[in-house]
């Protein structure tokens, strides 16, 4: 049996985890989830990123969703925000691209030119 202090600490930790998901992280992966993105397979891509983050055991990376970016023909699209760097946008991201971008860009900070859409713009 845990004492009340331990329980409070656990609760605070979980609260922080939940808060972090919408707050500040070193890396934020944003998947476009408009009708266009969903139709192009964005859900599979988001799931792949969530799995990749889980497997990497990194706690400073978060995956979230946004609406349509306005370039529907090039969905699924994702933005990667690395702390203190300009955001990078990728286009036509499938499962394979997601793995590549995660390993190269998210973990090693190297931009994957093959799927690059734009740098520095939202």
């Amino acid at each position, binding site marked *: 049996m845990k004492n009340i202090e331990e329980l409070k600490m656990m609760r605070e930790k979980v609260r922080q985890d939940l808060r972090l998901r919408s707050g500040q992280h070193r890396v934020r992966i944003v998947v476009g989830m408009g009708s266009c993105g969903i139709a192009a397979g964005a859900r599979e891509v988001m799931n792949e990123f969530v799995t990749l983050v889980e497997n990497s055991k990194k706690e400073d990376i978060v995956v979230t969703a946004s609406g*349509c970016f306005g370039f529907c023909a090039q969905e699924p699209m994702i933005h990667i925000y690395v702390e203190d760097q300009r955001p990078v946008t990728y286009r036509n991201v499938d499962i394979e691209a997601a793995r590549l971008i995660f390993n190269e860009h998210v973990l090693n900070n190297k931009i994957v030119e093959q799927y690059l859409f734009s740098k520095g713009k939202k």
Partner: protein
Amino acid sequence: MKDLADHLFDIIENSVNAGADEVIVKIAYTESYFFCFISDNGKGISGQEVLDPFVTSRTTRRVGLGLPLLKRTAEDTGGYLKIKRIDESGGTALQFKMYLTHIDAKPVGDLARTFSDIFFAWPEVTVRLFVIRDGIERLILDFQKLRDEIEQGLKNYTNIRKHIHEVSHKEFKDINII
């Protein structure tokens, strides 16, 4: 949209985009039809113009396709889609029905995945999922309760995606066979 699960995700994305933080989903199904009711507390719609693909509030592109597509998906099977503003709260309510035995019916897809995806895409939004069977409504998933349980350490955050999938899949497995 390749299946109904995609449509459902898309409709709930509409709610989130309209500023909703509470979404109620009620699903009733048999082997022959699929009925779904969704209501939210977002900013609401002003009329039926949301069913016109060339009317949209967005600024990123000039057409909105999610609802017109779902309407077509439902009507292609002899079903319907209705949408209206909830006068008391200002939110939106919609319902649609599609006949699964119709030759033009889309596959249902992995509905359970839709709900686990929603929890991950918008963790701050509360979704309550009810399944209606034999006239009885049962609460299957309550995201607020799940968040509380995670906070209290009763459930593990990293396993929650699996948990949501398992709970809803149990309910949907009959329909997933189709």
